[in-house]
């Protein structure tokens, strides 16, 4: 059964605007599943009903588990930012 978990940032992360940090994650795929892509998206004000701000990047390589992100200086300072890792995969027919 496929799964994905973001390991960074965490609740203790404090990233300055203009600085660069790694977004990291772990993922697993079942025996009949095939990796397609991962989208990293930025949200604000909660994960449910929050504001979708932007697509950070889209990754098409299964071997990549991190992304170096330079925080845009246009973002306002806040403690309620979230990143969503959204992995798409295909199921091989038996």
């Amino acid at each position: 059964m496929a799964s994905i978990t973001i390991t960074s940032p965490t609740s203790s992360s404090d990233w300055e605007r203009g600085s660069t940090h790694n977004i990291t994650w772990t993922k697993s795929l079942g025996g009949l599943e095939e990796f397609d892509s991962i989208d990293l998206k930025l949200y604000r004000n909660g994960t449910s009903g929050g504001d979708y701000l932007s697509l950070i990047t889209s990754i098409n390589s299964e071997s990549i588990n991190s992304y170096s992100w330079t925080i845009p200086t246009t973002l306002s300072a806040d403690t309620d930012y979230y990143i969503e890792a959204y992995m798409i995969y295909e199921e091989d027919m038996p």
Partner: protein
Amino acid sequence: MPYVNDFSDAFEISLPEPTIRTASDSLAVSESLSRSVSTWKVVESHTDSVSTTESFSTPSVTTYRTTVSTSNSVSLSESLARSLDTWEYIISHSDSVATAESLAKSTYTYRNVETESDSVNTSESLAKSTYVYRTPVSASDSVNTSESLLKAVETWRHILAYSMGMSLSESLSRTIYTYRTSVSSSDSISTSEGLALLVETWKYVESNSNSIVTAESLSRAVENWRQILTNSDSLATSDSLNVQIRVMDDAYFYDNAELKNASRISGYVENGSFVSSSGLVTSAGSLVDGQTSTSATFSGSDYAGVRFDLGSQTTINFICIYLNSGFSELIKFYGSNSQGSGWTLIATANNSSANWTINEFNECNYRYYCLQLEASTINSKIDEIIIGEKFVPEIRQDIGSGDKTINDKMTLVNSYAGDEYAFRTGKPGKLLEKRYSNISQTLKNNFADLYEKSSDKKFIYYYDGINYCSIDPVQINEIAVNRYSLDIKLKT
């Protein structure tokens, strides 16, 4: 398409902390300057062994103004402050010139340059100033630095303060040019040597004295520059020399207008018109009879004059008047080319002194001339007048010409007993004998004209004073083609 997702924990995005850097204001001036100088040393010269002199070079000054201030719009006070700080730092490290003195001079120069409303480019002025300072300070010449600087600054000050027609930039340019080339007529002379020579020249040659004050010697030097280098003065150098020579020359004031032959009529000039009026002047012929013992009498009210008709327009530039005694009535001399109108005042002559006075004026050219007295009540006498064009020989008389006292106004009587008596019939006269040993035909003709028009009428020969003379026949010998030797004798 199947998918799975995960959200990160909420995390913080914050503003960056202010960067901790050394504020420029907190950097000590000396340290800042030290770094600047070090930079200049390396960048400008590609070596660490740059001399102080080189540090003073124009690029450095330009750098101070632009780089240090990061703008050409830097205020003058700030620019000066930084420049002075820099100089102070640099000078104090190796140079022997007194910092305070250098700074004083520099500041003074800047102040002059900056405050003058001249269009001179500031950077150019600074470059020139720096060049002058730089060279005397560092040149291995024996010239005293402080003295050179003082002279240079004094010169600028003088030029600036006296508001001459020369622009500031031109003055500066010519000053430096003069230092380098004019004094020595060579570019190979060192600036410091040029300065020393110039100053010495001012002190000794111009004033014939070592006690001349600086201001005076500079004044003379600037006057020379103004006339010789720029010709900006209204009096050309050649004219100036000519004037000096003419002052020393002798001159003849004789009746070359032939006033003695002019017709005369009594009357007066009023508001540009001549009105005939008999009886205002009596014995007018005495004015031109060649004798100072007879006089014409002017009488009446307001105006009393005599008009002379020369027959044609005649150029004159003087009127000599002899009075047996001075008087209060004004003596005015008018001219016109029309008998009744267009009369113009030419000169107001001296009326207060007895004896001869020479009144010179700008050349004028009229047919009619009128001499008149003006006062509410007129009753005075004029004894003799001469008008004409002043004759100044183009060359001076020979060395050896001279004068001697003669006693030709005596009568010798022999008594029957054989004794000899002498009766003086007049004052002893003076015989002036002059020789011009090699003169042109033009000058010969001028002397011939003098004799022709003065053989029967005395005239004034001016040389070390006024001599009222008669002239003996002029002896002329042609010594070469169109060259003549001339001997004249004048008797007072």
